[in-house]
């Protein structure tokens, strides 16, 4: 186990370094000079040079890379070019929207997708199976931002139950804030639930055919008990991996969904930063999101090995 852990940890560190290098290089290659963004197009050459010096942009690329990474590791993400405030501060309030949104979406998609998949597998070939899988096909095909619009049409325009956009803030208490996040979380969750339902169904069907399930039935366990106590727990192992992958989709999904519902989260910040050419904010955000995905995948790998010890043994 320890060799496995060491190898995976080294891999994690290597991935993080490589990801940061890629983002840094791409940001160097893409057009846009921070100094002229801060000062505007009419700035004098000597003022531009002074600002470049102040930002450390006249240093060689490798020195800027290490300064950036060093800052990242100590919590100093630099100063936004357009807002003139530390990026770390900008992120804090945005994370308070995007993280609960993503978590709500994961909870909703799991709560819908896994039971739906188990139901379809247990009722294989019958009406409930066909209906669930048909719904999943449609769920897979609907883009989440259009689903968001449909939810707005139904719950805000028609029924006037929930707000069409905006975020009230956590200062109003947890319930009003969660209420404003409900429609965007649903829009994110339903397509992911469709994927989960399909994966769960085929995983459960596979375990239902295993000897230990037949054994459980043979020793007199009811079909329901064999399903829930033996088939489902074993089927959930591949499902864990999919859950990890979904986080990556959810992070990307929030970028668009936050724009549909005008939520002040990371997704909106990405767009504002790109529109304002606030390159340091873009660079920080992209590398932090990539790092989040890498760390989650690492955690999923470890969880997977804990659930299935065979994987931790050298092949």
């Amino acid at each position, binding site marked *: 186990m320890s060799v496995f852990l060491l190898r995976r940890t080294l891999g994690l560190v290597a991935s993080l370094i490589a990801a940061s290098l890629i983002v840094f290089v791409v940001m160097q290659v893409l057009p846009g000079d921070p100094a002229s963004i801060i000062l505007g197009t009419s700035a004098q050459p000597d003022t531009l040079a002074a600002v470049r010096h102040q930002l450390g942009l006249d240093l060689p690329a490798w020195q800027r890379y290490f300064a950036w990474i060093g800052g990242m590791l100590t919590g100093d993400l630099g100063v936004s070019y357009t807002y003139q405030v530390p990026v770390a501060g900008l992120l804090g309030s945005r994370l308070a929207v995007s993280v609960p949104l993503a978590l709500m979406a994961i909870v909703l998609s799991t709560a819908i997708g896994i039971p739906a998949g188990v139901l379809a597998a247990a009722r294989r070939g019958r009406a409930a199976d066909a209906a669930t899988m048909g719904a999943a096909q449609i769920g897979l095909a609907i883009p989440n931002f259009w689903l968001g619009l449909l939810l707005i049409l139904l719950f805000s325009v028609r029924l006037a139950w929930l707000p069409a956009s905006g975020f009230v803030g956590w200062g109003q208490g947890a319930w009003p804030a969660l209420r404003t996040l409900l429609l965007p979380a649903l829009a994110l969750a339903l397509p992911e639930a469709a994927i989960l339902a399909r994966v769960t169904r085929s995983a459960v069907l596979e375990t239902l055919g295993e000897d230990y399930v037949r054994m459980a039935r043979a020793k007199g366990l009811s079909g329901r008990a064999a399903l829930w106590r033996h088939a489902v727990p074993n089927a959930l192992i591949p499902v864990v991996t999919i859950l990890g992958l979904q986080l990556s989709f959810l992070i*990307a999904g929030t970028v668009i969904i936050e724009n549909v519902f005008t939520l002040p989260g990371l997704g909106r910040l990405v767009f504002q930063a790109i529109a304002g050419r606030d390159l340091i904010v873009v660079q920080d955000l992209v590398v932090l999101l990539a790092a989040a995905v890498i760390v989650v995948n690492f955690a999923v790998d470890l969880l997977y090995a804990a659930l299935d010890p065979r994987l931790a043994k050298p092949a």
Partner: protein
Amino acid sequence: MKPNLLIGAVLSALMLGVALLSLVWTPYPPTAIDILHKLAAPTAAHPLGTDPFGRDVLSMIMTGAANTLAVAVIAVVIGAGIGVPLGSLAAAREGWIDDVVSRTTDLAFAFPALLTAVMITALAGPGAVNAMIAIGIFNVPVFTRVARGASRAIWQRDFVVAARAIGKRDVAIAVRDVLPNVAAVLLVQVTIQFALAIIADAGLSYVGLGTQPPYPSWGKMLNDAQTFIYRAPLLAIFPGAAITLAVLGLNLLGDGLRDLLDPRLRLSR
């Protein structure tokens, strides 16, 4: 013929037909503004109504089909064109080349595709061409992984070992002996990536980074519709339904093809 395959083939053919038709004929020019008849409900003259500028929604959706199809085709060609040779190389050579290709592929999956596509199109300049490239880049690791995974086992097979033993060159083996054996898997992946590219293109144009006005795109139509969602809710329905039907068709086609081409998977369904 299985219903999946049939419905998928019909929907995909329908989309292709509409897209091709729009190149030679639409009921109205899709950019023709008719402000006197703006936000009209569906009538015989405008079967899907008109938008806030009085443009014919049906004509816009037809032209939008051609635009999104073009973006998706190029994006898949970029992805498969780079990814398949790379994955085949990794499978053929193993060793350090395989390690480098596999690690790089893993790393690419750490970047949320749509987010990075947003960043690339926004910073390199919005437009259909950059959207194709941005979506295409994220198809590369997918095709690399699929091509590598599928062809690895083939390289161990006796007929490949025999071909190597008689001195056939690796490139020739990869193209003539290995590729035909993995073509089915790749074809299924093409339909999946095609569907994902349509969703990605719609997302990019929804946030204003895809096909630029005055050329209509499904995503931009949905964005415009959101402003008028209380006055003209139908405007938010039609373009989204077009995206969903196109993606549904491709997904069903992919599922159907997989069932048809890989009989082993039929057992688990």
